[in-house]
């Protein structure tokens, strides 16, 4: 196994902040540069303090870390595989592409890492009830799963529009014993589901934990959610060293709130030779106004407890986001990403619906893997990164380049949307109706 390059070994990509030997890993919060913090009602501060205290003690408790390790291995199925995608890579300038297979986890995405950790913390705090927000239903299903496993009551808030579009995920959550409450106020989407969950939390905080689904929100959520997803980056780093003997040239992930991304990025933040890319939802295109490219086009502001980049108008009102991928359809982003963007450690770029769907189909047909549409944004980005890497190097050197893509989830949930997108259904079929409604995301 080759030694990982140390800071300063690759002067072409060493950034100033790493030259001083400052580590970007394990940033504890509450602040990431000028981002993060606690922009929350006083009523909830005591609960955030209790959560922070419980989390800090749990991290240092071998019994807790052993519980997490056991659940990760024997329940979620970790470590997830690192799969080389050779036929897909032919379309990406001929570089080598490896997929971090979070799609193979129990419940089909990275979300399980975080919900198990937080549900265990809820038990430690003596709380009997968890609440969660969900967009397409992935985090809601994961939360309902963890609650069933650990014997907790679970209530999931979901925009009424999303409930209708994702009726099967509502059924899934109910099968798992959760109660799904459709949210009919505001834009009836993910951000309004978060608002409603916060209202529930403030009224029931004595026995309720808010199981937030992404690395955003008030401290300690961003640092805590990242902690539970750091296993992705740690595994990926060890696996690529084992399989190829060296670190990758680039790591790619999709960004909604940014939890899968911060999880895999964390493993490589202190490796200056590794370029890191976050791909935001470009929707219909960043010049159309219909997108969710928060870092690319947003401005710093405060929403849902943290200071971060935010899609907002001149009055500071939140703008509704748009993406074919419900999991990326959020007008905010985790504060650590805002910081990593500002210092230049991570490059954030938009990927349109159309680019993502092309990558979706390409992975299906070249590798026999149906990716989540969220993850397809990272795949589309990896194609661009691969082509750039190939163009930079001398002829024949592309095959020496290595790119890791975080395949954050499987695409079974997206088949109706994809079938509609690619016009694969009879016009009158029930599936066509579902697909049509799903496609209006």
């Amino acid at each position, binding site marked *: 196994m080759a030694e990982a390059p140390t800071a300063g070994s690759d002067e072409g990509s060493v950034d100033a902040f790493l030259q001083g030997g400052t580590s970007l890993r394990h940033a504890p919060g509450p602040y990431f540069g000028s981002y993060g*913090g*606690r*922009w*929350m*009602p*006083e*009523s*909830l*501060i*005591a*609960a955030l*303090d209790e959560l922070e205290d419980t989390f800090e003690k749990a991290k240092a408790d071998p019994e807790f870390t052993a519980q997490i390790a056991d659940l990760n291995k024997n329940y979620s199925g970790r470590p997830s595989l690192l799969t080389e995608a050779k036929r897909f890579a032919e379309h990406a300038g001929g570089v080598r592409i490896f997929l971090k297979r979070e799609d193979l986890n129990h419940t089909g995405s990275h979300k399980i890492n975080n919900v198990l950790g937080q549900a265990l913390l809820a038990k430690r705090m003596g709380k009997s009830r968890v609440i969660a927000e969900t967009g397409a239903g992935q985090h809601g299903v994961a939360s309902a799963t963890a609650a069933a496993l650990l014997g907790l009551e679970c209530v999931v808030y979901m925009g009424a529009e999303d409930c209708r579009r994702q009726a099967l995920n509502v059924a899934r959550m109910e099968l798992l014993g959760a109660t799904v409450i459709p949210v009919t*106020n*505001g834009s009836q989407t993910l*951000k*309004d589901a978060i*608002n409603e969950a*916060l*209202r529930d939390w*403030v*009224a*029931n*905080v*004595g026995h309720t934990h808010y199981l937030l689904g992404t690395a955003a929100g008030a401290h300690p959520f961003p640092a805590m959610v990242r902690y539970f997803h750091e296993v992705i980056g740690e595994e990926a780093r060890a696996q690529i060293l084992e399989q190829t003997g060296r670190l990758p040239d680039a790591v790619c992930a999709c960004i909604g709130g940014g939890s899968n991304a911060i999880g895999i990025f964390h493993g490589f933040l202190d490796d200056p030779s590794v370029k890191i890319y976050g791909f935001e939802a470009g929707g219909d295109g960043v010049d159309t106004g219909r997108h969710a490219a928060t870092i690319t086009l947003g*401005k*710093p*502001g*405060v*929403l*849902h407890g943290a200071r971060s980049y*935010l899609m*907002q108008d*001149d*009055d*500071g*009102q*939140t703008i509704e986001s748009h993406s074919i991928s419900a999991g990326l359809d959020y007008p905010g982003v985790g504060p650590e990403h805002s910081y990593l963007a500002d210092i230049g450690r991570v490059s954030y770029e938009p990927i349109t619906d159309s680019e993502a769907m092309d990558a979706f189909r390409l992975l299906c047909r070249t590798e026999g893997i149906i990716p989540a549409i969220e993850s397809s944004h990272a795949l589309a980005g990896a194609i661009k990164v691969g082509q750039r890497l190939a163009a930079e190097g001398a002829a024949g050197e592309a095959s020496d380049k290595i790119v890791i893509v975080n395949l954050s989830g499987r695409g079974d949930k997206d088949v109706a949307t994809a079938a509609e997108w690619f016009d694969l259904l009879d016009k009158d079929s029930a599936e066509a109706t579902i697909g049509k409604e799903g496609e209006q995301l």
Partner: protein
Amino acid sequence: MTSKSAIAIDKARAEGRAALIGYLPAGFPTVEETIAAGIALARNGADLIEIGIPYSDPVMDGPVIQAATTEALAKGFAVRQVFDVVAGITAETDAAVLVMTYWNPVVRMGVDEFSRRLAEAGGAGLITPDLIPDEAAEWMAASDKYGLDRVFLVAPSSSTERMRRTVEASRGFVYAVSIMGVTGARSSVSAAAEGVVAAAKAAGAERVCVGLGVSNAEHVAEIAAYADGVIVGTALVAAIRDGGADAVASLTRDLSAGLTRK
């Protein structure tokens, strides 16, 4: 530093009663009607007026206020219009007029610029439901610069240490949240409210006003027995929704009957 809110509360205190604070969302149903209702509030017994800025993500508000602010936004309410409302009311009345706002609209305009314009409009200060003193450095500086009141919230869940810190950072009065929950009329006032007021006073607060779930004269009387001021929101929003400024005037007269300490 003189505080418009403190002066208004002390005036009520000198009259042997608690102060009445009434909330109205700006731009609901129109900017003009908010001004008219604000004037009606002041002329019928309110000592302080709280003008809310409609916001896209009002996490501390229940259904009635959400519906009102959503409607105001749908009709095109712009944040700068809150200064027109404040100026419109202060031009006609002696009431202290505060603005209640979620923090992002202030951040977007610039904390200093927002404060400057609020002071220029004759505003007394800000009530900030999602800003805690820990994050308020910019607002502390701007409110000092422009002589504005800083009304932070304390809750039944606030620790002794947080209570002390919040009281210390506040100017004008401290807003005691009566219940763990969001805005909205309730059938009875939470028993927790009196404890929150006592804790805030023990932490050094000179003036503590109670809000959340206060909707009628009986509630007002109950709170007036131990607090310096009583804050009414949802009931007034329902009044302006159903009967305009006249209904606001009538409800304010009813509410103010409960203020005198027995």
